[in-house]
C-alpha cells in the first residue's frame, strides 16, 4: 500500500503537531481579576435575604453536623431561604477549594487556610459587611486569623472569612485512669504533667495516644502546646501569619521539640503512633486505652455523650506555676466566593449565626465550641462537670491571658503535609533531631512563602 510505511507516521506527526499548536498557543491560567475582589468594600448597611425565594449554595465539611443544623434552623426562621448543600471531607475541600471557588462558586463555603485563596482573588472582601453588622466591634483576636494583607500575610488587612464558632485545644484526660494513678488534681506545671505521664507509664497505662500516621502529623498538637509552655504565643503567630523575617527555629521552640523528643524516648506515646489515624486515636481514647490525648473542643459534645462524666479537659500547664497559658484557637472558617450570587444573604446568615440566640445554642450544644460575637453576648447554659463546660471555661482563661494562636499547620497551604508531618514522623521514629526538625520545617516554609 502506498501510504503504508511512510504515510501513517507522517499523518500521526501532523496530528500531534496540530494538537501541540492548539495546546501551546497560550500560557495556562487566566490573568486573574484580583482587583475586583480586593478593592475596598463599602459598608453594606443591611444585608438581608429579602423575602423572595432564595437558594443558598453551600459547600460544607462532612462529619460535623453543626453547619447543617444551623442551616436547618435558619430556614425555619426564614422560610424563603432554601439550601443546596454539597459535602466533602476537609482534605478534599482543601484540595478543591481554588477550583470550586473559581468554576462553581458557592455562596457559603468551609475554607482551608485563606491566604492563597485571597491572593488569587477567589474570596469576597467582607469588610463592608463587617462595618454594616458591627463585626469590627468584636474582640479583634476573633477575626485576626481571617484578615489578609495585600502581600498575603495574615493577621491584618481586609476580612475574608467568618467563623461559625471558634475552637479551643488542649489536653483531654480520662478521669477514671487519672484517679487510678493518683492524679487527684489537674497538673499545674509542666513538671507535674511529666510526673503524671511517668506514673501512667509505670502503671502500664499508655500515657498519651496521638494520631501521627499517613499524611497527618498529630504530634504537632503537643508540640505547639509545648512551644507555649516555653515561649510566647506572639512570635509563633507571626510565623503562622507569614510576617516578614519570622522564624520557627527559635531557642524556646527548640526546647519544646527537645521536650517532645524526651516524651517520645521515654515511651509516653503509644508505640504505633506513626500508623495511627485520627479515628483510631479517638476510639482508643474513648475506649479507655490512654490517659491523655491532645485534641480540640470540637470533640467536647461527642466525649460528653460517649464518656459521660469520665472525660476531663485542661489547658497545657505552663512551665512555672501560675504562668500565662496559651492554646491553639481558631475560628471554624466559612467564606463567600467572590463570584457568589447571593453574597448578601450568606453574610446575613453568618451574622445570624453569631447573634441569634437559637443559633448560639446550637453552636455550643452541637459544635461544642464558643460562639463568635461580642464578649458580653448571650451564652447558653452548660451543665456543670461536662467537658463542654471546661472547654468553654478554658476559652475565658485564654482570652484573659491573650494566649490564642492559630495552628502551626496553617502557616502555608502545604507546610503540614510536606513539612511538619514527615518531620514529626521522623522524630517519632528516632530518625530526626529536634534541631534538624526545626531547620527543615523553616526551610520548607521559606520556599513555600516565596512561591
Amino acid at each position, binding site marked *: 500500500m502506498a501510504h503504508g510505511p511512510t504515510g501513517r507516521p507522517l499523518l500521526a506527526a501532523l496530528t500531534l503537531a496540530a494538537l501541540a499548536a492548539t495546546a501551546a498557543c497560550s*500560557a495556562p*491560567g487566566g490573568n486573574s481579576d484580583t482587583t475586583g475582589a480586593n478593592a475596598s468594600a463599602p459598608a453594606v448597611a443591611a444585608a438581608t435575604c429579602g423575602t423572595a425565594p432564595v437558594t443558598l449554595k453551600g459547600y460544607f465539611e462532612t462529619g460535623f453536623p453543626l453547619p447543617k443544623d444551623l442551616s436547618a434552623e435558619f430556614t425555619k426562621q426564614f422560610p424563603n431561604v432554601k439550601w443546596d448543600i454539597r459535602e466533602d471531607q476537609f482534605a478534599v475541600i482543601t484540595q478543591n477549594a481554588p*477550583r470550586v471557588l473559581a468554576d462553581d462558586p458557592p455562596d457559603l463555603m468551609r475554607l482551608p487556610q485563606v491566604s492563597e485563596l485571597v491572593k*488569587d482573588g477567589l474570596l469576597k472582601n467582607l469588610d463592608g459587611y463587617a462595618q454594616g453588622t458591627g463585626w469590627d466591634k468584636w474582640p479583634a483576636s476573633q477575626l485576626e486569623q481571617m484578615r489578609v494583607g495585600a502581600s498575603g500575610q495574615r493577621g491584618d488587612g481586609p476580612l475574608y472569612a467568618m467563623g461559625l464558632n471558634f475552637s479551643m485545644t488542649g489536653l483531654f484526660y480520662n478521669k477514671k485512669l487519672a484517679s487510678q494513678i493518683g492524679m487527684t488534681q489537674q497538673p499545674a506545671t509542666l513538671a507535674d504533667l511529666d510526673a503524671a505521664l511517668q506514673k501512667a507509664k509505670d502503671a502500664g497505662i499508655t500515657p498519651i495516644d496521638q494520631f501521627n*500516621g499517613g499524611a497527618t502529623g498529630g504530634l504537632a498538637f503537643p508540640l505547639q502546646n509545648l512551644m507555649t509552655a516555653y515561649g510566647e504565643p506572639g512570635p509563633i503567630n507571626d510565623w503562622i501569619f507569614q510576617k516578614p523575617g519570622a522564624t520557627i527555629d527559635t531557642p524556646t521552640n527548640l526546647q519544646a521539640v527537645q521536650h517532645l523528643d524526651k516524651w517520645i524516648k521515654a515511651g509516653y506515646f503509644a508505640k504505633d503512633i506513626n500508623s495511627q489515624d485520627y479515628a483510631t486515636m479517638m476510639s482508643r481514647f474513648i475506649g479507655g486505652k490512654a490517659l491523655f490525648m491532645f485534641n480540640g473542643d470540637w470533640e467536647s459534645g461527642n466525649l460528653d455523650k460517649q464518656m459521660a462524666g469520665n472525660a476531663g479537659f485542661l489547658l497545657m500547664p505552663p512551665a512555672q506555676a501560675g504562668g500565662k497559658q496559651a492554646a491553639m484557637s481558631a475560628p471554624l472558617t466559612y467564606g463567600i466566593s467572590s463570584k457568589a450570587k447571593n453574597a448578601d444573604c450568606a453574610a446575613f446568615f453568618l451574622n445570624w449565626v453569631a447573634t441569634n440566640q437559637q443559633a448560639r445554642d446550637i453552636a455550643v450544644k452541637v459544635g461544642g465550641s464558643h460562639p463568635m460575637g461580642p464578649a458580653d453576648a448571650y451564652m447558653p447554659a452548660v451543665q456543670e462537670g461536662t467537658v463542654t463546660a471546661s472547654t468553654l471555661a478554658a476559652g475565658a482563661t485564654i482570652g484573659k491571658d491573650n494566649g490564642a494562636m492559630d495552628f502551626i499547620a496553617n502557616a502555608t497551604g502545604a507546610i503540614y503535609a510536606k513539612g511538619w508531618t514527615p518531620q514529626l*514522623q521522623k522524630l517519632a*521514629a528516632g*530518625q530526626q533531631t529536634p534541631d534538624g526538625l526545626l531547620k527543615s520545617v523553616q526551610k520548607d516554609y521559606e520556599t513555600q512563602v516565596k512561591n
Partner: protein
Amino acid sequence: MSAPVTGRRARRARRPRAVWLGWLFAAPAIVMYGTFVLRPLLLTVQYSLYDWNGIGPSTWVGLDNYRRLLTDSELFATIVHAFELIVFFSFVPVLLGLFVAATIRNIAASRLATVARTVLFLPQVIPLVAAGIMWSWLLSSTGLANELLSAVGLDSITRAWLGEFDTALPAVGVIGAWVLVGLCTLLLLAGMSKIDPALYEAARLDGAGPIREFFSITLPSLRQEIGVCVTVTVIAALASFDIVYIATQGGPGNSTMVPGLEIYYLAFSEREVGMASALAVALVLLVLAVVLPIQRLTRDGSR
C-alpha cells in the same frame, strides 16, 4: 465496500473513497483518543514548562522544573522507591505466578485447580482501594498479621508494619504482590494451555523429570506471556498510586512516597502544577525507558 473488486484499475479507482471511509469509521475513536489522551498529555508537557498554581497567571520557566527534579533529593527519592517496588510488584508475582501456574496445570483435572484459580484471581476483582483498606487493618499493630506472629511466639517482631520506616515500603509491596499474583498466574496458565502436549510427551520419553520439563519446555514457551506479565507489573510499580495512597499516604516521613503520589501532592496540595507536570512527564519517559527494552527482549525471541 461490498462491490466485488475486479482488476487493477478498479481497485485504484476505488482507493480514495475507501481511505476516506476508513477514516470516517475511525473518527469517533480518534476524536476520543485525541481529546482524552493526546490533548491532556500535550497540555501536561506544556504546563511542565511553566510555574503555575492552577488558577492565577503563569510564568514561563523553561526547563527549570526538570532541573529541580534532578537536584531535589526528595523528588529523586520517590523514583528510587518506585524501583524498589518493582521487586514486589513484578519479580514476586511473576516468579510466584510461574510456580503456581505450573502446579495448577499439573492438577488441571481436579476441582481444586478451579478453586485455586478463582481464589488467586479474586484480588484482581476487588477495587484497589478496598484491598488497601483491608490490608491496612491486617497490618496494623493489633491486626491479624501481628496476632498470628504472637500466636507462634514471635512477639518480639510484631510491629505496626505500615507505620515504621524500615517496614512500610516492603509492607506496601506485599499488598501489591498479593494483588498482582493472580493476574500473572492467569496469564501464564493461559500461555501454558497453548503449549503442544506432544512436547512434554517427547521430553518424558527422553527421560526428563518435571523440573527439567519446566525449564526446557514450559519456560521458553512462555516467553511472550512472561513479557506481558513483567510489562504490566513494572508499569503498576512505577505508576503506583492507589495502594500507597490508601495504606500510608506516603508516610511515615516520606518513606513510601512514590512519583504518582508526589505528583498528586504537588498539584493539589502544594499547588505547583508546573512541577507536578514535569514529574509526570519524567515518569512517562521513565516507564517507556524501562518497558520498551522489556518488550523488545521478550518479543524478538519468539520470531
